[in-house]
């Protein structure tokens, strides 16, 4: 297999080095063109994200490690000594690495979804710049489908892994869709703004703001398209709301059981309190009410930890899928490298068949000619199938290349150039 990759990720390099290695999207085509201009490179693709800067190549011959590191540093604008931290994978290991990357197994946050889109984008850029080779095309399309497969067959990407998303996850477990839910924001600071942003992304659009300073409440409500209410909120506000987000810097509880009891006791639908303040804004005793669901930052951290544990467990199943897909890719590669010889065999046999049928045609009646044609085709098909089957069997012992070479020579046609090309490619494979 002729594949090589070199790169830096969050484990191999610190943030400063990763920042220097990152390539802006608009510069990517230029770097790719410089890479494929190298005489030993048939195709190249670059995966550049905030956590990794990786170069994938299909070279004519494998690079010497030092030369490869220098090439990487040159293309990514790094100092030669920076290349020492880079990791290098070859052939099946390079395949497995990209499959792990696209599946989110190599990510800082295991199972993250964005990486799949980034792999797609890296491939699209390489394709648009006409810098890919047949093997890189296959590698990237297979890596993308492997990433999708892992996410379909395991729960590796499920469950929030940040506190903010954990709060949204809890809200969605309770309410499913947030577009019809009413949100009461208590506090108009940075945390409230961030919570409002995440809730709005999840579909929320009806807001009421309660803040100690009325002018700030009005400015915030205006920004998010909501209305204001008194501080602290009244029973009427609790009756109105479905979700209450509390994020003030008050040293004591803003919402006590006594102040909200009559409103929540009479409720017949759920009321979710997301208490993001430290110290807490909501009296814990309120959570004992039937329709009240009260969560603090600690609860969300616990949910994040539980989700991470679940993802770790799913990662084991994902690794098995990656392993299987790696084997499928290797099988494709083995078949692909003998494909030109098989094609040459088919062309040679077909030429013989048509010329023989043509020569003997005067011996047959016109109606029999169709039958003779059919019979000769069937005969050639059987011969080809037998040879292909034996070549596949030989590939298990690694003898398929010798056989492919023998076939290329035995069935060489008039086009010597094509035969030479096939033999050259096979020689490269054999030398490897």
């Amino acid at each position: 297999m002729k594949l090589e990759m070199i790169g830096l990720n969050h484990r191999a390099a610190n943030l400063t080095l990763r920042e220097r290695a990152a390539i802006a999207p608009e510069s990517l085509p230029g770097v790719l063109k410089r890479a494929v201009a190298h005489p030993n490179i048939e195709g190249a693709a670059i995966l550049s994200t905030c956590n990794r800067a990786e170069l994938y190549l299909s070279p004519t011959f494998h690079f010497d490690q030092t030369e490869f590191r220098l090439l990487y540093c040159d293309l990514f604008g790094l100092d030669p000594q920076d290349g020492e931290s880079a990791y290098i994978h070859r052939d099946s290991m390079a395949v497995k690495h990209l499959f792990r990357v696209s599946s989110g197994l190599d990510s800082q946050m295991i199972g993250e979804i964005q990486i799949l889109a980034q792999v797609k984008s890296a491939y699209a850029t390489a394709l648009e710049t006409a810098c890919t080779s047949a093997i890189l095309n296959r590698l990237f399309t297979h890596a993308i489908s492997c990433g999708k497969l892992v996410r379909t067959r395991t729960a590796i990407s499920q469950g929030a892994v940040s506190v903010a998303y954990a709060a949204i996850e809890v809200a969605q477990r309770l309410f499913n869709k947030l577009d019809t839910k009413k949100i009461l924001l208590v506090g108009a600071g940075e945390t409230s703004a961030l919570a409002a942003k995440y809730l709005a992304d999840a579909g929320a659009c009806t807001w009421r703001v309660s803040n100690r300073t009325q002018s700030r409440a009005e400015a915030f409500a205006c920004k998010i398209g909501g209305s204001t209410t008194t501080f602290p909120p009244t029973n009427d506000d609790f009756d109105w709301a479905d979700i209450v987000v509390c994020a003030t810097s008050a040293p004591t509880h803003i919402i006590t059981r006594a102040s909200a009891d009559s409103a929540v006791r009479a409720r017949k639908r759920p009321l979710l309190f997301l208490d993001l303040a430290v110290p807490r804004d909501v009296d814990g005793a309120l959570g004992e009410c039937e329709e009240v669901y009260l969560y603090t930052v600690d609860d969300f951290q616990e949910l994040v930890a539980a989700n991470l544990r679940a993802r770790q467990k799913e990662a084991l199943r994902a690794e098995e899928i990656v392993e299987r897909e790696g084997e499928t890719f290797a099988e494709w590669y083995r078949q692909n490298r003998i494909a030109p010889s098989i094609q040459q065999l088919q062309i040679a046999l077909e030429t013989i068949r048509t010329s023989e049928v043509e020569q003997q045609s005067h011996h047959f009646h016109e109606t029999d000619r169709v039958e003779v044609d059919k019979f000769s085709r069937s005969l050639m098909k059987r011969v080809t199938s037998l040879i292909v089957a034996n070549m596949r069997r030989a590939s298990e012992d690694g003898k398929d290349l010798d056989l492919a070479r023998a076939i290329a020579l035995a069935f060489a046609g008039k086009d010597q150039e094509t035969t030479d090309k096939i033999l050259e490619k096979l020689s490269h494979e054999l030398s490897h």
Partner: protein
Amino acid sequence: MEDKLTMLLYNLLPAFLILMYGGLLAFWAILYHNPDELLERLATRIGWVTLGVYAIWLATLSIAQRQIPILTAGQISVFLGFLIWMDQLFLQRRAPQRILVVLPLITVVVLLLVGFAGGLRHAAAPEQLHSAWSAVHIILSMAGVAMLFGSGVYGTGSVLLKHELKSRRFGRLFSRLPSMDEMHRLRAFALYFGWSLITASFASSVVFLFSARSGSPSFFSHLHEMFALWVVASLLALSERLKWFGDQKQARLTVALSALIILLIAGSVAQIFFGGRS
């Protein structure tokens, strides 16, 4: 030939169905521990196939005995199992996560086993059960019960999810159950649908009794039970409609009253088959 058909209808097919549903139950139990969207879709398709086999069996049985399978307590049990499974597949098309399928599956397996053990052959079915009205009445009430059972399943789901949410456990049930809103919606839908069927069944039972004037005392007693059952179902539907209680209380009430209704129906069926003989 007839022996072979009898063997197929009363032994082989029910045994095959028990195996299929048992296998499906094991499949879903594995999926609960190892979520796999692809296999979940496959399990749902297998669920539809088992429903098809079930339907073919019941249809053949009906043709063979020239009456829908309501002639013995065992037949009613397997017929109810069929309706519960059909309702479940119908309801789960409306909910993206399907892990609640385990509860109806267990019930269907139990009903099939009860039917198989209780006897499917109709040696001495009560005379009245051969009339067309009895068929209409029993089908409607069983379909209603199956729907109320579905409502109870989603009510149970809500109670379980509430427990997870309140105890902040964030375990498998938290991540695999449909959202609370969705379960409330499905519970209410199944309840209203079930109530409509029970109401129609009650009306048909009145017509049935007046048309069969020679009805035995056990059938008049059955009318009283049907009325009690209809009152319970109506109260449940009314409390849901008028929001007498909060969502959670209503869910718990649905679970309790659905169980009561199912018990009443079971008692009523027993009254028909065994009441007259004592």
